[in-house]
């Protein structure tokens, strides 16, 4: 599927898992690359090299696999349409083992050994946080797809961007209007007792308050807990909505035990798809979720009103109507997050074209061109929906989906507005030296 220079061979009709893998310098390769459109208008036909910091092994591997598939699909689409500035895109994958120390090492390798133009694609926040200083030091633009608030908090550095996926603070905040208006005014939160849970613990109450609703109880569950029944009596009887964001292998047990605790007479349930990414919602134990609601970044299941862009995106990545791999229905995707890889690559393309980017010497220009971006229209490049971009905090803002579990599928019942997720910037990266 890739030719000898690691480019996608577009003569094959199906997309294989083998992305552009390694780069010999291009030149001669292009002439023989079958199916490649001509790049004659470009001054240089050397490929744009993207270093993909990938969770190929370690605890992020299930996400990493889908990030790789999505990235491969986006690169194929970009190359199909003439590449970036008339140059083909080549991806170099390095595995970070979902390990922050290894992540920093990998960023260094991209900058000095592979000499990639940018680093891209990191999901796990601790890897982002561990790698960001290395990117800043090497002065290599680092485009993450992490959904953490770390980029927007402006505590990283000027080379780190998150233009393709919204951050968790914005996501949580934008859920509040719908919850208050449709689910209930008295909310009890159940979350794992560590940083991930704390985002929800801290950002939800003020957002609900602004909508005239209240968090009446917050139940923090120790991360190593595998049985939950003993915590349920702490849920106040007047609770109208249980807001749950459990993660890890015990999620199924949590839902099952919650179901046993309440029976058929339960409060409304509202959760985040992070709990069940890459997991079939029709798994045994999850029956109790029927009729409950979830945040979804991008819908897992095909919706009747999907845009042409959304349909094309799903087809390109290779997910079926149930959000699983085409031809492998048990391989459920990480739909709520992986679209961010696709959209980020198109932001990179746009910024490189705006900057007239030619090579690593133009990295500072690329940073400034990215910061100058303000919005991304919904379409083939941004199939999840329209977005705005705040160049000062390097973070995009977009719509969110609220989906109802109905008949074993997730049906989108509400799309938030971009404004629902906006907040006051906490700093300004553009004041930092390049």
């Amino acid at each position: 599927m890739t030719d000898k220079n690691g480019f996608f061979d577009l003569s094959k009709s199906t997309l294989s898992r083998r992305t552009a893998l390694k780069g010999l310098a291009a030149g001669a390769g292009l002439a023989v690359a079958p199916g490649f459109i001509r790049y004659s208008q470009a001054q240089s036909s050397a490929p744009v090299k993207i270093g993909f910091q990938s969770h190929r092994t370690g605890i992020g591997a299930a996400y990493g696999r889908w990030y790789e598939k999505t990235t491969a699909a986006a690169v194929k689409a970009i190359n199909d349409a003439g590449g970036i500035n008339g140059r083909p895109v080549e991806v170099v994958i390095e595995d970070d083992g979902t390990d922050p120390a290894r992540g920093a090492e990998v960023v260094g390798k991209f900058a000095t050994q592979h000499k990639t133009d940018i680093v891209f694609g990191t999901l796990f926040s601790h890897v982002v946080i561990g790698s960001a200083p290395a990117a800043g030091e090497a002065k290599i633009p680092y485009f993450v797809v992490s959904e953490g608030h770390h980029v927007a908090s402006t505590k990283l550095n000027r080379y780190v961007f998150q233009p393709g996926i919204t951050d968790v603070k914005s996501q949580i905040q934008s859920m509040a209007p719908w919850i208050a208006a449709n689910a209930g005014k008295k909310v009890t939160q159940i979350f794992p007792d560590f940083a991930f849970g704390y985002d929800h613990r801290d950002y939800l109450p003020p957002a609900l308050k602004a909508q005239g609703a209240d968090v009446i109880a917050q139940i923090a569950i120790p991360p190593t807990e595998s049985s939950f029944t003993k915590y349920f009596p702490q849920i106040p009887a007047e609770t109208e909505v249980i807001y749950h964001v459990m993660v890890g292998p015990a999620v199924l047990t949590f839902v099952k035990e919650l179901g046993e605790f309440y029976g058929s007479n339960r409060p409304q349930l509202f959760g985040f798809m992070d709990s069940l990414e890459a997991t079939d919602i029709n798994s045994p134990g999850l029956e109790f979720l029927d009729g409950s609601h979830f945040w979804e970044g991008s819908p897992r299941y095909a919706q009747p009103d999907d845009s042409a862009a959304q349909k094309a995106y799903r087809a390109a990545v290779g997910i079926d109507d149930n959000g699983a791999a085409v031809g492998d229905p048990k391989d459920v995707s990480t739909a709520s997050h992986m679209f961010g890889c696709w959209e980020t690559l198109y932001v990179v393309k746009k910024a490189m074209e705006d900057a007239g980017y030619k090579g690593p010497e133009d990295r500072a220009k690329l940073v400034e061109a990215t910061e100058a971006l303000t919005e991304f229209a919904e379409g083939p490049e941004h199939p999840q929906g329209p977005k705005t971009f705040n160049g000062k905090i390097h973070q995009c803002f977009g719509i969110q989906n609220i989906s109802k579990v109905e008949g074993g599928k997730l049906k989108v019942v509400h799309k938030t507005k971009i404004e629902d997720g906006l907040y006051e910037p906490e700093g300004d990266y553009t004041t930092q030296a390049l």
Partner: protein
Amino acid sequence: MLPTPAFAHASDRGHVLLLPTGYYVAGGALAVAASFLVLALLPPDTLDRFWRRRLPLFAFGNSFRTITSLISFAGFAILIAAGLSGSRDPLSNPLPLVIWTLLWVGLAMLQGLLGDLWSWLNPWYGPWRIISRLIGREDEAQETRLPAWLGCWPAVILFFAYAWFELIDPAPDDPARLAFAAGFYWLLTFIAMLVFGYRAWSRRCEFLTVFFAMVARFAILERNKVERDEDGRLNVCWPGAKLRAAEPLSAGGIAFLLLALSSVSFDGLSKTFFWLDLFGINPLEYPGRTALIGVGSFGLVLTFVLLAVAFLLAVVLGQRLAASRRSLGEAAGLLVWSIVPIALAYHIAHYLTALLVDGQYAVAALSDPFALGWNLFGTAGMQIEAGIVAGADSAWWLWNLQAGIIIAGHMLAVLVAHGLAWRLHPVPSRAALSQLPLTVLMIAYTVFGLWLLATPTAG
């Protein structure tokens, strides 16, 4: 503090958590205990008569061994080159996939089933034959300058280094890193074989040969020794029958077998919530391998020490119970062979899911080892079906398979230990009595093994 979303996904262990695994653990323990009781009641020579049975197949010589090893060496050299210059992606580069999945998991299974394929496939024998012929030192069993007191401790140390690299090192999957490690090890071994003799080095120092030879003792195929003018006949035998004639292992050999089992067990243990919690590590925010080097190194040693102490204690107690005058070394060296089926069972159960998924990646990667767009075997573009191990149904099947393998492995271990004890203690009642502590250990290890596969884990 920066917020840190966790993406620890619900994972397939989540489905196992909903299965009634407690019943399996109890059932497994009972099955192992019952097999001990049944064996104790059987006349002592029943097993022996059973194990002596052979179904002869055909005979063949060793003439192709040099060729197969040379082919294997050529393949190894290509893989090293691929590791250095092919894809940087460990799931696209064939080197990590062949070494960690096809060799360490796949070949170990085949050795356990079919016997010593490694002696035909190892990448040293052929090159050694050629070079040693050129320098005129062709005797495979030449007198060695390797000091006798070293025993097979070099293999123990090298196996520990290997286990450390596999389980603790931050990036054993990194193709270039692995290419350097494997290439260096090949060269070191090759030189040592030339200096100290092929047989001495491969039997006492080359840890893969030592491991694979031990595992092959359990296989259902046995080949008679190749005599001067007669080919070796291949026979079918019962699993474990070859252990009947096993010689007692030296102290180093005992340590090696116990390390082989304890290191794989530790790989399972190190990812459990239980273990991580002991060190205050949040499994949902797994900090990555680099942060756990200290804890992991400690754990790798600890599990070995605990298993060794438990095993020796069981043997000592058994000797006391049977009032045996045999030395502890002889008894332990013989009885440790009963660990082989457990180690093999645990190896298979533990790596089963990795084999099912990464095995597919390996098949695909082998078609295009240098990421040059080749499609040598027509598999380069194949779809990797990760779903084969995903979801509740797969979790059920895998759990039952794994539990079955673990329980069967321990039952066979009891059987082997029984057969060996009979050699140590010809009086049946004493033989049975001597086995009591070891059987308790095996029951405990059954419970431990099943628990490792059922308890919540990170990732």
